[in-house]
């Protein structure tokens, strides 16, 4: 029989999708692929949350085009997370998007929490002051400890890799390159499960690595066939 009042102690894990919906995302089915990839990642995230019993996974989403807007706010528990499609137009206000996340991290974090997870997906160059927002993130207590994954989308030459690399300061892995929709689906799935595990359970590494470092595990290879271009 259940013991009355017995509940496992949990910490919140705040997860933020930061998604590029600028005009360039409207070409070659990119925005459709992004919508589907996020939607497809939900079941795996629910699974990841279940296998981290001490974590209470809360998902937020911010989008940036001509302006940055919360798409899902306040955050919702992963069990009740439903993805509504976004459409693409306008410029790339990535800095403004990061500012919205900083606002939330600075004002709304509970007193005890797991490192937040930030997943940035973009196909181009920011058109606003991204580095100013980034330095705000770096200098905030929650931002500095966050697990950050940047996914560059589309042809390699078009992505601003410098921005992506700066976004992933202190992380052990390089930004991911999603050359096609299959990559994107895999990487978003990876980011939303492995990064959640890295935040909630901590680093479980091979013996060569220092145990104290929160590094992201290696990326699984793409197992779906290549082919579609966007």
């Amino acid at each position, binding site marked *: 029989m259940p013991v009355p009042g017995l509940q496992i102690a949990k910490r919140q894990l705040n997860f933020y999708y930061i998604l590029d919906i600028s005009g360039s995302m409207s070409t070659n089915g990119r925005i459709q692929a992004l919508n589907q990839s996020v939607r497809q990642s939900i079941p795996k995230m629910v699974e990841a949350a279940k296998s981290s*019993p001490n974590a209470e996974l809360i998902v937020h989403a911010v989008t940036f085009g001509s302006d940055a807007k919360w798409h899902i706010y306040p955050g919702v528990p992963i069990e009740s997370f439903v993805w509504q499609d976004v459409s693409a137009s306008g410029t790339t206000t990535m800095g403004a998007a990061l500012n919205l996340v900083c606002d939330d991290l600075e004002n709304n974090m509970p007193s005890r929490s797991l490192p937040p997870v930030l997943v940035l997906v973009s196909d181009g160059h920011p058109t606003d002051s991204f580095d100013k927002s980034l330095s705000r993130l770096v200098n905030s207590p929650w931002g500095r400890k966050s697990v950050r994954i940047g996914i560059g989308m589309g042809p390699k030459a078009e992505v601003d890799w410098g921005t992506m690399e700066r976004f992933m300061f202190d992380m052990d892995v390089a930004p991911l390159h999603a050359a096609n929709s299959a990559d994107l689906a895999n990487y978003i799935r990876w980011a939303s499960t492995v990064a959640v595990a890295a935040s909630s359970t901590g680093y479980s590494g091979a013996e060569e690595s220092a145990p*104290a470092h929160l590094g992201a595990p290696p990326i699984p290879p793409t197992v779906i066939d290549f082919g579609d271009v966007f």
Partner: protein
Amino acid sequence: MELLNTRLWDEKNSKSRNTNEAYILKNELGSGTQGTVYKIEDCEGQELAFKAYPQLYLDQDSNIEKRIRELAENGSPHHAFLWPIQWLKLTDGQRTFMGYTMPLRGSEYIPSTDFVNGTRPLEFRTVITAAKNLADAFFHLHTQGLCYKDISFGNFFFNPQNGDCIICDIDNICYSGEGGGVLGTPGFMAPEIVTGNARPCAGTDLHSLAVLIFYMFYIHHPLDGKQETAIRIMDDIARRKIYGTDALYIFHPTNKTNCPDPGTQSAPLIMDEILPKRLKDTFKKAFVNGLKNRDHRVVESEWRIVLDHIEKNLAHCSNCGQEVFIDKYYPASTYQCWNCKKEQYPITLSAGAEKIMLSPGVSIQDEYGRKIGTIVRHPADPKIIGLRNETDIIWLITKPDGEGQRVPRGKSVVVGPGVVIMVNDYKMVIDQFK
């Protein structure tokens, strides 16, 4: 996905491509950083699990093929392990999949996280049985000189009906003290591994096992006390402190600085009022004396004795239906139910010289040690317990008022003081332990 129902064959045996010695890849069962597990069917139609490693992982752990081949050759030390059957390099002509086959995990097994999440509350007896099975499995592994390295609740499943266990992810098993593989899962690693002063071995497995058993009983980590609550952002630097350099048992008998915080860590405080002294003393040994000294850790054979003892001393509260651990029942005394606070005597079954304390899940044997019945809860009222007839003999019951009853197979008799059960000429008397 287009991989499904692909025909694969052993790359080393090119003949199998053209014969019927191929495998059919059925579906994906799960994936993680260490690989993807598929359900496959061999040429005889037998379904197996196949764990395929990503190339990156094979590059990192160059010894893995040799290790798995050896494990497969030596055979499983205990039935709970999903032990490798064969190392295979399968191909469909374009891609190769390297990994090993193992038995499939039955659908009756649930992840241990479902239990600690509170989604599947269990009877204490089932938790005890599951812990005993774990102790048995690791006893056999360790006495073969092997170590597991990554004991945590992510790697173990159990049957909520009877406490049977499955231990998966055997990839890291090797002879104790030998290199390769992982360090473990944070929170489950021994403090000396967290601080970088040791590598995984059988002695560090014992710490992980004690953490896992503690988690099963307390739904909490043995080192997560006020030190943990004081930390705002739980990252690896904080984990290194709590589980490594500053590790301190939350129920340390003298140093109370890391006791549980009643506001956020209520589970261990609730369970500490319920669990028996014998078990708590064993945890104290594991996390006080044994925390930083691996020679003082609790070995599996000791867990087994302690768990057997508390299993035999689990009573049933007939007032509220909860299971109650009894610390001292001999010489006879009453106990108070932790839940409804009622003072009572345990209900027992006497047969010959033996006296058994009754609560749900107790299995009853005849004079030859054959199982004849199980104590079950009444489906309409879980407070009421009965003994289910699991034999083909019709039991003859005498109720306390002298009335007779017949109990065929599958039916149960409500147990209470004064009931007499005859199985042919084997007599069992229900009494209260006075």
